[in-house]
């Protein structure tokens, strides 16, 4: 019973590991990292660590943060997760300007391109919308209620994105499905008109991104999945344009390739102003760069950048040529310090080609330098052993959450026999 499984999961929040997340301001004014319930922000313009201002309590979140994001216009920042609270921050003053409570744990967030609506998805597959009209952050934090926007029937929503033109909201789930819905003029009345379904993945969809160039301002959707592929879509029709297998390429770097599900794509990041997409792949040390040819509508592996680091989350600001990465985990069992994170930056992505080799920067070469590293990681140095354990714990957690339970025949029969709704009378 799937709903029971989710409900059971809900009770075990404090033992569930959560991956570290990273997000970069659209023009790289600041960088944010979330590890566990901790939200850490570094102001790159002012070159200083940010102290968050939140009237509603000393700690901003009380349980693992599962989604963070800057708005496209750079004014807002949203964080949400297992504590069922969505916090909307001013990305300038870093004051929490609005708090929304959710009935269920939150798995994804998105901000409309005009910054007027925040959407969040809960673990029961419902996407909610909050109207921010009239909130300018000048007053103390307000609380708002959300209205249901759309739903994936009892599936965990794993990704939520607005299309670059703002016309559609795209939602991905663990049942292999991507839904493209017209974002209506009055979102509080619900988004009823489905433009398309993008169907083709054969495992849970884990992440979404849009590749945008000057020639294709409407962008193309790419999605990553537990089926070891990244796919390119036309969202207007829902057509699958190309499929890029990542496991063959990632495989030769594998230490033990026998591992099941080792090529799950965990995050995608379109590098702004290029047609490159960086992919984080479970247990691939480094990142895989995919190149998207928008005129032939194809997607291919351009390069694997090997570094001693398995990123859990990727981010990039515009025109900087930098790819920001974090790896880390919260609630790591068996360690004194259960929360660990490590930030790295790859530089050298220029507009058209990869002729300048992208390279991983040393900590002191990263914008913000070691001061930034210290803020975002919580410490300057991180024990590599802990990171290895973190990668393993995450792999297990992701499988538990997103891969459907495969019961053996006997177990299934047993579950059936012990159901209380089954009539004994024949």
């Amino acid at each position: 019973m799937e709903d029971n499984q989710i409900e059971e999961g809900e009770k075990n929040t404090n033992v569930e590991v959560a991956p570290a997340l990273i997000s970069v301001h659209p023009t790289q004014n600041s960088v944010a990292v979330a590890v566990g319930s901790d939200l850490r922000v570094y102001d790159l313009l002012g070159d200083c660590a940010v102290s968050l201002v939140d009237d509603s309590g000393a700690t901003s979140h009380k349980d693992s943060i599962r989604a963070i994001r800057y708005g496209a216009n750079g004014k807002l920042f949203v964080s949400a997760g297992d504590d069922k609270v969505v916090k909307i921050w001013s990305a300038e003053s870093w004051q929490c300007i609005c708090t929304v409570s959710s009935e269920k744990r939150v798995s994804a967030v998105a901000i409309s391109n005009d910054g007027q609506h925040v959407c969040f998805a809960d673990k029961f597959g419902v996407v909610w919308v909050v109207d921010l009209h009239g909130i300018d952050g000048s007053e103390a934090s307000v609380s708002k209620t959300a209205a249901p926007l759309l739903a994936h029937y009892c599936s965990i929503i794993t990704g939520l994105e607005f299309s670059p033109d703002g016309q559609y909201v795209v939602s991905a789930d663990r049942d292999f499905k991507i839904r493209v819905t017209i974002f209506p003029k009055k979102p509080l009345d619900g988004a009823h008109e489905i433009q398309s379904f993008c169907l083709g993945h054969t495992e849970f969809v884990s992440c979404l991104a849009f590749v945008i160039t000057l020639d294709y301002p409407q962008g193309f959707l790419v999605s990553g999945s537990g089926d070891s592929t990244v796919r390119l879509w036309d969202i207007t029709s829902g057509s699958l344009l190309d499929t890029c297998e990542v496991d063959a390429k990632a495989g030769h770097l594998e230490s033990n390739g026998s591992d099941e599900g080792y090529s799950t794509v965990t995050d995608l990041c379109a590098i702004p102003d290029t047609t490159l997409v960086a992919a984080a792949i479970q247990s691939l040390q480094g990142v895989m760069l995919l190149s998207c040819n928008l005129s032939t509508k194809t997607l291919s592996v351009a390069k694997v950048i090997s570094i001693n680091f398995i990123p859990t989350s990727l981010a990039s600001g515009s025109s900087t040529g930098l790819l920001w990465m974090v790896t880390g985990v919260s609630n790591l069992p068996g360690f004194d310090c259960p929360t660990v994170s490590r930030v790295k930056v790859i530089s050298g992505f220029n507009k058209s080609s990869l002729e300048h080799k992208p390279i991983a920067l040393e900590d002191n070469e990263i914008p913000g330098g070691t001061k930034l590293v210290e803020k975002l990681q919580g410490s300057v140095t991180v024990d590599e052993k802990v990171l290895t354990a973190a990668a393993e714990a995450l792999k297990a957690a992701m499988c538990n959450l997103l891969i459907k339970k495969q019961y053996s025949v006997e177990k299934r029969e047993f579950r059936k026999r012990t159901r209380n709704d089954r009539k004994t009378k024949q």
Partner: protein
Amino acid sequence: MLEKESNPTLSKSTGLPRKRFYRARAHSNPLSDSHFPVPVSPSHVDFSLHYPQFFPSSSEVGCLKKIQFADIGCGFGGLLISLSTLFPETLMIGMELRDKVTEYVKERILALRGSDPGQYQNVSVVRTNSMKYIPNYFEKGQLTKMFFLFPDPHFKEKNHRRRVISPHLLDEYAYVLGVGGIIYTITDVEELGDWMKSCLESHPMFESLKEEELEADPVVKLLCSATEEGQKVSRNGGQTFQAVFRRIVPTSLYMKTDMVC
């Protein structure tokens, strides 16, 4: 079919499958993860298996005929059997969650195809959870009729989200129905009837059929008589509550409140 005679699950007199060998639990939990195959997308469904006469070989690509009617939670398939001869050129499919019931409907169709050569070629059934996998079977705007006859009531408030008609699921039904397509619902549970009607009324992509349209539609008459559940209700002299709505272009989506008249 040689083994027909010796097959105890088929009735000796009619050659049709006997229902008592296909009895199953009264209600299924549509949220449970089941173990049936799900097509990746509508283009992955092999229609030659369902309608061999319409799709003579599986290699033949581009046969233009598409399924137009879907009976959601078709149960033992009575409606499909009636519709099959009423619309002999229209492909139709039943979707049913319980495997034994689905097997029964399959056998029933095969038996009818055997006893009435050339007939019942346009009807088939799949075992699936319609609440999750409708978009895996049908493309946008493909269907012209959808049926929800005597669906499970799920009385408890907490279980309302298991109802097969709900505001969010109507978005998906509106997606697979073409403009002008019709959604037929009927129940003997008044509370559920009110619920289905109010969900449809509040949805910007559906409008109610007028009284005279209902009378002119031959299918409406089948709603309370063609299915096993409907027959049971009428045998017991029970009341029924129907709601029949048409899929419309959602211009009202943007104008609804401005158009107060």
